[in-house]
């Protein structure tokens, strides 16, 4: 009942179209290998901020889907974002939560509450238009195309194993300011 995060990311990379993606923490190393493009910006150096960064992008570019790859430890750092996102009602935001129950990067200490924390209920209670949990890759493959069409904000908890790499074991990648510049330039040239 748990998916490999890299398998989930491959499904997203294959089907995202022109969606902007916002990875954070342990999804970042695999994502930059799978999707080395200018339409992604990683949340690095401000843990917990991925969903807020994604919200800003979603509000700025309502014609595009924005997909956030959050972590459970990260979300707990700024849990109020669930209410802020609900209040702003971005129709184009898909908030994916990679739930592994631990702070993988710092040595896999269990997050407060571990795997028992019910983020789906929290998101639903905060006012997300829909919220669900997926633990099987086949189900995620089946549902993902519809997640790119349904009205947001949408919250999906993805029950996963640990990633092969973390930002500590696979350092590198494009610095955050350069990612922002590249994304901004890409959006500028594609703006209607």
């Amino acid at each position, binding site marked *: 009942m748990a998916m490999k995060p890299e398998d989930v990311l491959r499904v997203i990379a294959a089907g995202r179209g022109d969606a902007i993606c916002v990875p954070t923490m342990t999804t970042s190393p695999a994502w930059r290998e799978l999707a080395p493009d200018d339409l992604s910006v990683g949340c690095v150096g*401000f843990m917990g901020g991925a969903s807020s960064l994604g919200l800003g992008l979603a*509000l700025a570019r309502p014609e595009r889907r924005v997909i956030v790859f959050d972590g459970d430890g990260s979300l707990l750092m700024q849990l109020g974002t669930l209410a802020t996102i609900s209040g702003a009602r971005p129709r184009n935001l898909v908030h994916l939560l990679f739930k592994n129950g631990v702070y993988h990067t710092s040595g896999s200490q269990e997050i407060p509450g571990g795997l028992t924390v019910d983020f789906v209920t929290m998101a639903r209670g905060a006012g997300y238009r829909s919220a669900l949990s997926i633990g099987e890759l086949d189900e995620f493959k089946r549902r993902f195309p519809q997640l790119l069409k349904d009205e947001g904000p949408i919250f999906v908890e993805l029950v996963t194993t640990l990633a092969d790499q973390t930002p500590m074991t696979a350092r590198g990648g494009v610095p955050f300011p350069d990612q922002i510049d590249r994304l901004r330039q890409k959006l500028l040239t594609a*703006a209607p």
Partner: protein
Amino acid sequence: MPESIPASLIIDTLKDTFREARSARAAEGWGRPASEHLGWILSVPDTHQKTVLAALDKEQALRVVTCATEDEATAIAAGLYAGGEPVVLMIQHAGLYASVNTLRGVAMDGRIPMFYMIGLLQRERDRDPRESRHSMVRFAEPLLDTFGVPHARLEGPDDVHLIPEYYRISRQRRGPAAVLVGLETI
């Protein structure tokens, strides 16, 4: 002596600031904005600027997003900037203290233009803020100095020109800049 600034004057100045930002955006090559409003205000409600926030509720030209924390507001502002939208953050000094890591990580290391209007709640009319009896007033400017954030005080209606000036500074230096609202707005 400092004076309170009317909310209407601040809002008119913000509109002018956003009009200038929209012109700069168009010159940069961005197409038509996705919506009709001039710009975005990200607010973690500040008692000191409550008359401005109340007036913004009735304002159609500016879109306000109320955020649960200043950390969120800063990261949302980064996303709006990346998407080509002009944005101003309205917070309180206590929120500045609460969000210094995000200020550092996003606005400074991330080189994101970020313009803050920071209310100095409990600032005494007859004292320089650096000599305030209240630590939350007293430490605001030294904290901004420590982080190298350009800042100025809005000490009365004659100072509102500092709003577009410091907004421009944040864009030019690609980082944070702030104005400190000296007395409660009216």
